[in-house]
């Protein structure tokens, strides 16, 4: 198996902006929309997904030479699902409030296309170190996009910022940072009231749309193509799609990611 030489720095930074999984590759849209109602939730989701992504990238990269290509998708799924379950149990035990807030979306990290997509497009073909770095970069990129969206939605929709911070800070002990629990920008009962629609479902789509427009504009400036759902009937799951695994129809999209 010939391995391409990769620059670690490049692998790391590409996930942040150039190939941001959410805004550029349009992967992982479901959790992005669902948990970006508050920055704390977004941060929790981002970090959980990042841990799963890094671990699964490392393990899959380690195993890449012993996994027969026929069963590689099931093996990837098992590896990812195990890490997701481990993270889920740890979150339940150590950050219980986060588990309550993320609900069903925590186990659904399994089918987050970013993770399976990276396993297929990157970790299965590259060295352990490069895969780990790719996982860190992509994970941070995912978390950043998520937090960016959550910040807009929380400030406009709930009039708070970082509300419920103690839910996460509980990891570092009780009442750290003097019991800091976020800022209240719009006080209850004041003349202003927050635009609740922003934390509801429609607000999620709307914010994502505008954010995507901004990302496209920035990309255009630097001469890059717009983010589009590409290939395979415009399926963003192309990386994990078994049609493609069978050497079928969709060859574009994900290939660039590993190039």
């Amino acid at each position, binding site marked *: 198996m010939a391995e391409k030489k990769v620059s670690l720095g490049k692998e790391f930074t590409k996930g942040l902006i150039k190939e941001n999984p959410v805004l550029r590759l349009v992967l992982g849209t479901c959790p992005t929309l669902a948990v970006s109602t508050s920055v704390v939730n977004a941060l929790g989701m981002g970090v959980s997904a990042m841990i799963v992504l890094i671990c699964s990238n490392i393990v899959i990269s380690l195993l890449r030479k012993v996994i027969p290509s026929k069963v590689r998708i099931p*093996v990837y799924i098992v590896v990812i699902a195990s890490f997701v379950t481990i993270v889920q149990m740890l979150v339940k035990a150590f950050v219980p409030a986060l588990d309550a807030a993320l609900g069903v979306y925590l186990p659904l990290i399994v089918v987050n296309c970013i993770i399976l997509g990276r396993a297929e497009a990157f970790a299965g073909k590259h060295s352990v170190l490069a895969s780990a770095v790719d996982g860190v970069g992509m994970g941070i990129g995912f978390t950043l996009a998520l937090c960016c969206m959550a910040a807009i939605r929380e400030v406009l929709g709930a009039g708070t910022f970082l509300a419920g911070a103690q839910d996460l800070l509980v990891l570092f002990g009780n009442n750290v940072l003097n019991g800091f629990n976020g800022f209240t920008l719009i006080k209850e009962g004041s003349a202003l009231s927050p635009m609740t629609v922003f934390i*509801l479902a429609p607000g999620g789509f709307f914010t994502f749309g505008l954010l995507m427009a901004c990302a496209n504009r920035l990309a255009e400036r630097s001469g890059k193509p717009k983010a589009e759902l590409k290939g395979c009937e415009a399926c963003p799951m192309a990386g994990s799609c078994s049609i493609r695994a069978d050497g079928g129809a969709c060859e574009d999209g994900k290939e660039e990611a590993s190039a």
Partner: protein
Amino acid sequence: MTKFKEYFAPTVVLFLVCLIAAFLLGATNQVTAPRIEQIQYDNEVAARKVVFAAADSFGDPAESSAEGVKTVVPALDADGKVIGCVVTAVTKGYGGDITVMTGVDADGAVTGVSILDMSETAGLGANAKKQSFRDQFIGKIAGVTVSKDQPGENAIDALTGATITSRAVTRAVNASIEAAGGVLNG
């Protein structure tokens, strides 16, 4: 040999991966399960204190046969006399089950309400967790209504845009008061 590689190897690898994964999960579960249980227990104990601040200690939880009511815990004063009880009730909200804990004193009036678990819409139903909403119930007696349906002395104001959640919580509180009455008087 090629047959072996084609059919046998994938099966063995997949099986081994599954086996290792199952072992890892079992191990993690061993570590985290007791802690998760402990947290749930701690939360419940802490919530009891919140909804019935006047109580000194709490007795043993008893199962209740009333519909929607899970457990009834007697609240005791310093002398060990029963001065009320804390009732945990489950009700159907907008986005699934809501678990509500209600403190009821000997006169059948609510001393406090706490939401233990819910999956209501963020920004609407989830506001039921806010103190301003929960505190409305304090002092109310059996037959609490939502003022939108039936205004009056014993009514609470519904949350904006979350009438269903408000009704659900009210229903749980009413069931709790009833269950408490049965225990305290019976």
